[in-house]
């Protein structure tokens, strides 16, 4: 036998515990610092500020009294609940029906319907709201104009600047939640479960009512809860659609507390508390529902899944099902594209001489603010994604490998921002970093940190699920072949993580690009990003500029997604082929 791996004399008998603990300890301290900066300090200050007097900093309950004792501040809460419940109800019913059509019937075109419905996930709802302003604004909206021209009536029938308008638009973009949950469940459910009922003499509708629906109930409830929370936390669509109607919801009211001079951060923090508590408790409920589903699992092993014959109903249902993508993606984004190509949108896109590329030239070459905003969005997003991925992967590594006791607390901190609505997070960051020792407000740093924090949970769960799939054997095999711990990590685990880390990076970068609700609280005139520019233009009524920036944002997003998936895809092919 050859003598392999000759050990340096004196280093032979190294103390194993010391050897393993040292790099782990350094990593742990760094992660703790990062998590404190991103999660603990902002949440801590949010809570602390809500109990502090604005002048004396003494502890007080006055902020809560101020926030919840005036009629004008209670009305937004009622509005928020009304909005959220209506949205959740509509989204759940429509989403469930669509899921059943796509997953369990022979609906024509179902394979394109699925991506079209999920496309509403990719498009930010505040852009959808803008699109619907062009279609259904009371006088200038195109649908209203066509109506007036056709029926010679005085007014069009639609007014998007209303509670109904907001409910409609937000529901359009919430439907994918229920749809994806329920269709995933139905896809897994073998027909035998339904057949068992049918053989016992139960008819189609009775079977659906007593077998199919109860089995899908956890998914339906999850969809309802997430739609409800999403509608409660949204800032963009209510700001665009309800502020002109002089109606407030909680999120827009929080914005008003902020835009007072001086900003009433303390009251805002107190006002945000119910939002935080409701979100946290409902997400807990949702997790329990999903968790329980595991026991009553709709196991799909070997089960045959037959599709139900719709027969004469095929084409009527086809027409109904395609209404959703028409309303959520095709109409509003066509409108947005046309507005961005119009000199003056209210003249209508086909008015003579109205079509132009002027606004693109303006946004990319003439106007300094928009150009800068694009650069800012890309760079802040990239830095935030990198920061989030590094922290998330390091924490996930420590947690999955259980490097030291108590490391699960780190994992908890990494997922904690999941319960923070964007606005609440922004208030926390504002409260924490507008004063020494870390004065970040007004710098790019606060936006970067807020993005990193907001999407840290996504990066963490992605990284940790990949790490859980990698057995320690892979690293240990390298150890027995003579590689030290760091070399094993670097040559085995790191390359195996690369693809997953790139995915995590995208999962942070892309939502960061589209982030509005925290950005709008934390930007200043030097740190404009695409979404805040859109917000400003919308506020000022410059809808051609809004559309141009909206289209540019979507184009940038799609280009990045396509390039990235090419990259990731190639890697998949390389390691599989």
């Amino acid at each position, binding site marked *: *036998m050859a003598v*392999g791996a000759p050990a340096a004399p004196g280093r*032979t*008998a190294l103390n194993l515990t010391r050897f393993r603990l040292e790099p782990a300890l350094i990593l742990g301290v760094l992660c703790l610092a990062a998590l404190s900066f991103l999660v603990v300090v902002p949440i801590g200050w949010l809570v602390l500020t809500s109990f502090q007097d604005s002048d004396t900093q003494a502890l007080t309950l006055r902020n809560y009294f101020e926030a919840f004792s005036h009629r004008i501040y209670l009305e937004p809460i009622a509005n928020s609940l009304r909005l959220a419940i209506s949205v959740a109800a509509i989204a759940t019913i429509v989403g469930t029906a669509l899921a059943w059509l796509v997953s369990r019937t022979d609906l024509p075109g179902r394979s394109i319907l699925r991506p079209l419905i999920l496309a509403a996930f990719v498009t930010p709802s505040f852009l959808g709201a803008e699109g619907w302003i062009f279609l259904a604004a009371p006088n200038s909206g195109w649908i209203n104009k066509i109506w007036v021209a056709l029926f010679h009536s005085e007014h069009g029938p639609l007014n998007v600047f209303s509670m109904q308008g907001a409910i409609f638009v937000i529901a359009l973009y919430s439907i994918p939640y229920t749809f994806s949950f329920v269709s995933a469940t139905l896809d897994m459910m073998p027909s035998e479960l339904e057949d068992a009922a049918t053989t016992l003499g139960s008819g189609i509708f009775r079977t659906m009512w007593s077998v199919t629906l109860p089995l899908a109930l956890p998914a339906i409830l999850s969809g309802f809860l997430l739609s409800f929370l999403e509608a409660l936390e949204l800032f963009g669509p209510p700001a665009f659609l309800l502020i002109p109607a002089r109606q407030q919801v909680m999120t827009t009211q929080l914005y008003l507390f902020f835009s007072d001079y001086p900003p009433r951060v303390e009251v805002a923090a107190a006002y945000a508390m119910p939002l935080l508590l409701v979100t946290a408790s409902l997400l807990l409920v949702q997790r329990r529902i999903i968790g329980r589903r595991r026991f009553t699992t709709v196991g799909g092993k070997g089960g045959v899944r037959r599709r139900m014959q719709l027969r004469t109903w095929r084409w009527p249902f086809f027409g109904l099902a395609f209404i959703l993508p028409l309303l959520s993606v095709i109409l509003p984004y066509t409108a947005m594209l046309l507005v961005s190509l119009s000199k003056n949108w209210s003249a209508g896109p086909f008015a003579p001489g109205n079509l132009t590329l002027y606004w693109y030239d303006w946004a990319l070459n003439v106007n300094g603010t928009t150009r800068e905003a694009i650069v800012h969005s890309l760079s802040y997003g990239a830095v935030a994604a990198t920061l989030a991925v590094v922290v998330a992967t390091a924490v996930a590594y420590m947690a999955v490998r259980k490097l030291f006791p108590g490391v699960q607390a780190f994992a908890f901190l990494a997922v904690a921002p999941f319960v923070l609505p964007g606005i609440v997070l922004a208030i926390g960051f504002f409260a924490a970093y507008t004063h020494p020792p870390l004065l970040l407000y007004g710098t790019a740093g606060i936006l970067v940190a807020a993005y990193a924090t907001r999407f840290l949970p996504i990066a963490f769960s992605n990284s940790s699920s990949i790490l859980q799939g990698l057995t320690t054997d892979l690293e240990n*095999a*390298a150890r027995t*072949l003579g*590689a030290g711990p760091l070399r094993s990590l670097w*040559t085995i685990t790191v390359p195996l993580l690369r693809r997953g880390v790139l995915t995590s990076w995208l999962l942070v970068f892309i939502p960061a690009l589209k982030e509005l609700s925290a950005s709008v609280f934390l930007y200043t005139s030097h740190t404009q990003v695409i979404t805040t520019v859109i917000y400003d233009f919308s506020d000022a009524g410059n809808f051609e500029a809004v559309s141009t920036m909206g289209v540019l944002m979507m184009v940038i997003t799609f280009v990045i997604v396509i390039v990235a998936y090419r990259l990731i895809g190639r890697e998949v092919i390389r390691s599989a082929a």
Partner: protein
Amino acid sequence: MITIKQLRKTYEGSVAVDRIDLEVKDGEVMALLGPSGCGKTTTLQLLAGFLKPDAGEIRVGDRLLSSARSVVPPERRNMSLIFQSYAVWPHKTVAENVAYGLEVRKLPRAEVKTRVQRTLDRVKLGQLSHRYPAELSGGQQQRVALARALAVEPQVLLLDEPLSNLDANLREEMRFEIRRLHDETGITMIYVTHDQTEAMVVADRIAVMNLGRVEQVGEPHEIYELPATRFVASFIGRTNLLQLNGKTISIRPHQVLLSKPIEATHCLKGRITRHAYLGETRDYVVETADGAIMRVTTGPEVIHEVGAEVEMHLPLGACREITE
């Protein structure tokens, strides 16, 4: 020679390995055989250097590798380990997997290449060196793991249930394959398994483990024919355990002779309660007069009906006295 002395390892109060002693000679294949939870995998992890013992020591030759005070890390023990999961790296080709250990040892590139090829030829994977693991069958991945471990020419090869993820036919083939690789290389192996047939095919000697202890060490025929303890007798093959004259006796089912009652005194009387025809043999369950249950295996020509009274003759040479 590998010497394990009074090795002990506990996890949060429960004892996984309880003061075991074991010696493995150079060039020998030693199987650690036992049910799950018997401590055999922990022993292997201690040998590989992934765990630190609470007490005792592990030496190779006169080099102290592990003790409660210090542990030579896995990368400096010159032992290769075959994992139950194979742990073949999915992002490296077959050749890159095998070359890894040689590159860590900073061998010149040309030599790495020839040694990789030689090792792959030895495990019959010479043609597949540019494939990725995802394109290989389970058996081929197992061979990659073997080649990768053998390429560095380690002093000791440790194998952790290497065949438990293969299907039955392949498992049988790989047993002989591993034995062949040993006979060609003469490498010292420690082979962990819960499968007695596997241990008997591959190993020169078997250490039967139970509850963190080594119950018996011996060659396969010694373990089977001369079981020292109740556990070894019942874990290795089937057996009948009887109390005779205050002693515990083990007798294998096929060594009991079954006949119709004749007037004789030096035998056990019983009644057939169950019977199965298995082609090569017949299996009988016999209940003795005092309620003990015996299993008896006979040739297919020995036929007794259920309910029939029979006599069981226990040849003296086949009865083993065992300790509890």
